[in-house]
């Protein structure tokens, strides 16, 4: 009488233990996505902090392109306003990247500006932030991939559906990111 009960009990304990492990693994991976997302935010913040300095050092030289400068400032303010959905934020940041790229191309026509020590330093910092941003996005994507893999495979998918874990979206590679090396060549020339 006692033996079948014990067997059942141990099977139950093992099953619960197993399910708990799977659950914990999913939670850990979800937390990793949050970590990665936090690191993206930190890098975006760094970029936002750089923009005012960049604008003020560029403004003295580039009157004609004030439209571009204006656009960057507006986008930056918009991004910092806080009440944005994730999708909107992505779009704005993507626009900032594009506009900054455009600005760096326009800088080509201003040799004085290009030679300016302060501007060069800012440009280096900007390059670094962009690179860090790209690294944190890659880290985010690999975290999302691990997480998605873990909730889509059996038996973890049962747990995932029970506890409402849903798959997440990755960052899509932005075409203009590939242009970043151009800035380096500009600096070298």
């Amino acid at each position: 009488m006692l033996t079948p009960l014990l067997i059942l009990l141990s099977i139950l304990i093992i099953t619960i233990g197993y399910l708990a492990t799977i659950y914990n693994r999913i939670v850990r991976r979800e937390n990793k996505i949050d970590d990665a997302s936090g690191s993206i935010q930190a890098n975006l913040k760094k970029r936002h902090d750089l923009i005012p300095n960049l604008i003020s050092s560029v403004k003295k030289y580039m009157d004609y392109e004030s439209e571009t400068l204006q656009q960057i400032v507006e986008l930056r303010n918009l991004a910092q306003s806080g009440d944005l959905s994730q999708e909107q934020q992505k779009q704005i940041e993507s626009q900032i990247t594009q506009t900054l790229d455009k600005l760096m191309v326009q800088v080509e026509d201003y040799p004085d500006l290009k030679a300016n020590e302060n501007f060069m330093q800012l440009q280096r910092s900007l390059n670094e932030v962009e690179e860090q941003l790209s690294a944190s996005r890659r880290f985010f994507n690999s975290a999302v991939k691990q997480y998605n893999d873990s909730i889509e495979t059996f038996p973890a998918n049962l747990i995932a559906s029970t506890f409402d874990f849903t798959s997440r979206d990755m960052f899509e590679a932005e075409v203009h990111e590939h242009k970043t090396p151009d800035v380096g060549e500009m600096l070298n020339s």
Partner: protein
Amino acid sequence: MRTLEDFKQFYTNELTQTIEELRDEVAQIEANAQEKKPDKIPFILIGVILYIAFQFSWIIGNSLIGLFILYGVTKASFSSSEPEISNTKQQEGFPSTFFELLPDLTLASGFITLVISPIPLIYWFSTGVFLFQAFIWIFLGAFTLLFFNGVPLGIRQEKEANIRKAIKHKLLGKIISFLGDSFQFEPTDSIDKDKINNSLTFPKKAKQLYGEDYVQGKVGNTDIEFSEIIASKSPVKKTATFSHNKRQEKLQQKVNNYISGKKVAENNSHFFRGLYFIADFHKNFQGHTIVRPTNFTWSDVQKSKNSEKKQASFKGSYKPDERLDLPYEHDYQQELKQTTLEDPELESLYNIYTNDPQQARYILSTSTMERIKDFHNRTNDFHDQYKNKVFLAFYQSKMHIAISYAEDLLDPKGAAYEHIMDASSPEELLEKEQLVNLFQDLQFILGIVEDFNLNTRIWSKQ
């Protein structure tokens, strides 16, 4: 970067002069070695006298050794009818005088004695007759010869070591300073052991490090240093009877042996041999990231070696199945975990360990990953007979690269020293490509900076 054409120009202008100076230096070393030899004759005589005594005591030994000495002396007297060697060109080839021949002669006869010495023992066991006299004389003879043959042999090795050293100091030093004014060359120095160990480039800690050809300097904006190393996982044995100084001496002797081209007493504890290169990385970064080859065992290096003979001499050095691609205990201590990047091709070649996955991606940007693959291919194309393995570590804003080689990289191989000294005209030497190879090896090493784009300083590090 200097080109091969520049080098040829430099060679005609300056290096020819250096080689002339070297010839004089080598002649001096030769002369010194010649002077040393006569002092050692009594030792050889003792050996020979003991041999004669031994001949009386046992008939088999008598006939064998007698025949051998007869053969050796005939050969020696035949060769010594040639004029005495006084010029620098005659060296290191086939021994041509009696003195030159003596070491080989005594060594060989010593070995023969060792081989035949068990015969009285076998005779004793099988017949029950104990030939006491034969027993004693054979061992005494063998011991004497093996002990004393080291003396003339030592003189020859010392001479060769001195010649190699002289050539290396001058020639390599000159070529390196041609490649860049900032370079400092220390032929007997090595990269600091702690730097290598702390970087965790290898899964094992090097407790003992042999090194040579240390170069330090700047390529463009990038600080670099490199040297050839042999890393060993076990320390020098501490023997209680040795005083501290004696131990130091012994260690120094080992290092000198290695530098002078003598074989280091090789054993299973050597786990890496090759080039170790450290460069300032072009980005500042935190954390610790390591890129190690997958499925790497030392047998890969052995298999890829082209020469059978060399393979035999190399076999004793490494455990064939020792896996160096696995994480080891101290990786876990540093919380290094394997991470997966987006490049399947790179993943198939290398395992990447890091304690900061985001920084790992910052260091190993898409373009750096491409560069690692290109470098991997280029390394294997450059010396394609070796299938060299590349280890990378990124630590404290520096990049460490270790490339395994089965033999010395910055050393004119084998008979090259003779070629350098023998060439009758500068053009002839260039044709023989010994110097050109040396130059290309160096160019390859310094090219690492370009390979990894380390001079592009568009990030906040300048």
